[in-house]
């Protein structure tokens, strides 16, 4: 049964991946990419890598692809001009493809990465927590690369803000502190005046 599930998800994954590059509508392509991520997460689950699987969904499907979808939806891209050179460059593309496939067959062939060359990992006990193991490794053995990666993210934030934040003079903006500090006396003035009499 597990094999059946594996083949089902693999088939969906390959189909979705194919549709990502062949779909005419970019929004469809992005949604197929989401499907591809989702099915690969399912495959990881089958490999007992539940942390990676869920994080893939959480980060890629839940956040990255949403932003991607945002951009693609707002751009309203017309793909026709992008496809103009397709036939002209096709021979070159096919040539490169053939070369890459040949190389892959030669290099990543069964000789090195086949079923015989790799030992089948043992099934883990039910209480085995992939998350806990990964966490322990990440904060002990791999603490240095982990920290460097966090610095890279920090730089990305700093760079993004440095390149986009503009303080334009004259724009109106809310100062919440002042709003909260406002009291009745500043806003309302009660005026006492004599009642008017209508003239007869």
């Amino acid at each position, binding site marked *: 049964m597990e094999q059946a599930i594996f083949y089902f998800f693999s088939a969906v994954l390959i189909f979705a991946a194919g549709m990502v590059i062949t779909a005419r509508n970019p*929004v469809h392509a992005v949604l197929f990419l989401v499907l591809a991520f989702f099915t690969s997460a399912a495959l990881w689950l089958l490999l007992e890598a539940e942390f990676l699987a869920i994080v893939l969904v959480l980060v890629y499907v839940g*956040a990255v692809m949403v932003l991607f979808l945002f951009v693609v939806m707002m751009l309203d891209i017309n793909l026709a001009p992008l496809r103009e050179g397709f036939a002209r460059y096709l021979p070159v593309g096919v040539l490169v493809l053939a070369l890459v496939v040949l190389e892959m067959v030669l290099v990543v062939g069964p000789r090195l990465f086949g079923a015989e060359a790799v030992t089948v990992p043992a099934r883990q006990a039910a209480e085995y927590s992939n*998350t806990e193991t990964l966490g322990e490794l990440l904060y002990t053995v791999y603490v240095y690369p982990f920290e460097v990666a966090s610095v890279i993210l920090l730089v990305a934030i700093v760079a993004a803000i440095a390149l986009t934040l503009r303080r334009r003079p004259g724009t109106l903006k809310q100062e919440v502190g002042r709003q909260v500090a406002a009291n009745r006396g500043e806003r309302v003035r009660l005026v006492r005046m004599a009642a008017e009499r209508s003239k007869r």
Partner: protein
Amino acid sequence: MFDWFMNPEGPMVLVVILIKIIALVMPLMLGVAYLTFAERKVIAYLHVRVGPNRVGPRGWLQPIADALKLVMKELLVPSAANRYLFMLGPVMAIAPALTAWAVVPVGEGMVIADINAGLLFLLAMTSMGVYGIIVAGWASNSKYAFLSAMRAGAQMISYEIAMGFALVGVLMAAGSLNLSQIVMAQQGSILHWFWLPLLPLFLVYFISGVAETNRSPFDVAEGESEIVAGFHVEYSGMAFAVFFLAEYANMILIATLTALLFAGGWLSPFQGIPVLEGLFAWVPGTIWLLLKVCVFLFCFLWFRATFPRYRYDQIMRLGWKVFIPVTIVWIFVEGAAVLAGLGPWFD
């Protein structure tokens, strides 16, 4: 019998799982139906009105009548809409709302999938909910719907971060990602529940939950006075009903999670109190959970009747500039407390 049911063997596994799913989804759907009724009643009383009282005794059959009406209505697809995605939108909205329930325990040992990474699974599933709204908004090919989809998307992504950080606090306190174990880690008394040591996170989580479900006062995505009804403006009949279901199922989910993570789940509030504990020992845990969920759901309705709608930029400001810093600071405080073994929670 019960033991066998919880640990089936062989081909019966699938059947048992199916039964469990039905046993969870049917009450959930019923709950959604009567939540809509409760909403109308509660808001009515808060407005000093009576609310629906015509269909059935005291209006009790109102939700059934509403459901029947929606089922009978024609499904309209706008001619310029993207047909497939238009129909896919509601499905993408309800699927994660229901899937998330797979790991939610409704009592001790009463859970469909008791997985170790339950909390992460929940985060992943709730983060998927935004697709239904975005896809529906875009596929409708309508300006209002599209604007709403953009608003909803941005809002949900922003609040998810604060929610995620709040959950980090919970898992630090419980030392586990498994929801059942998180509940069991709160044993002791009402003061042992995580709402007390994690008070800021508790508030942030619940308010973010309100924002995440696009409920008032964070309902700019629906904002009927500015963008009519937002992403489901073009939907009718069952497709609209599915969105409705998803929104209310999400509300119940958030309320349940708040109860599980911060309010002791199915644990009795009288635990550790000499006389009362024995007096209420007969009440099953599920009832306690249900009561707690009802309290939080009432808060949802209460908010709606009380607060004016936030402006969009204020929503963003609250999420990014208030909630995220608060959660980060509290995670540090909590880390220090855990390190110091501060009792009675972290020893």
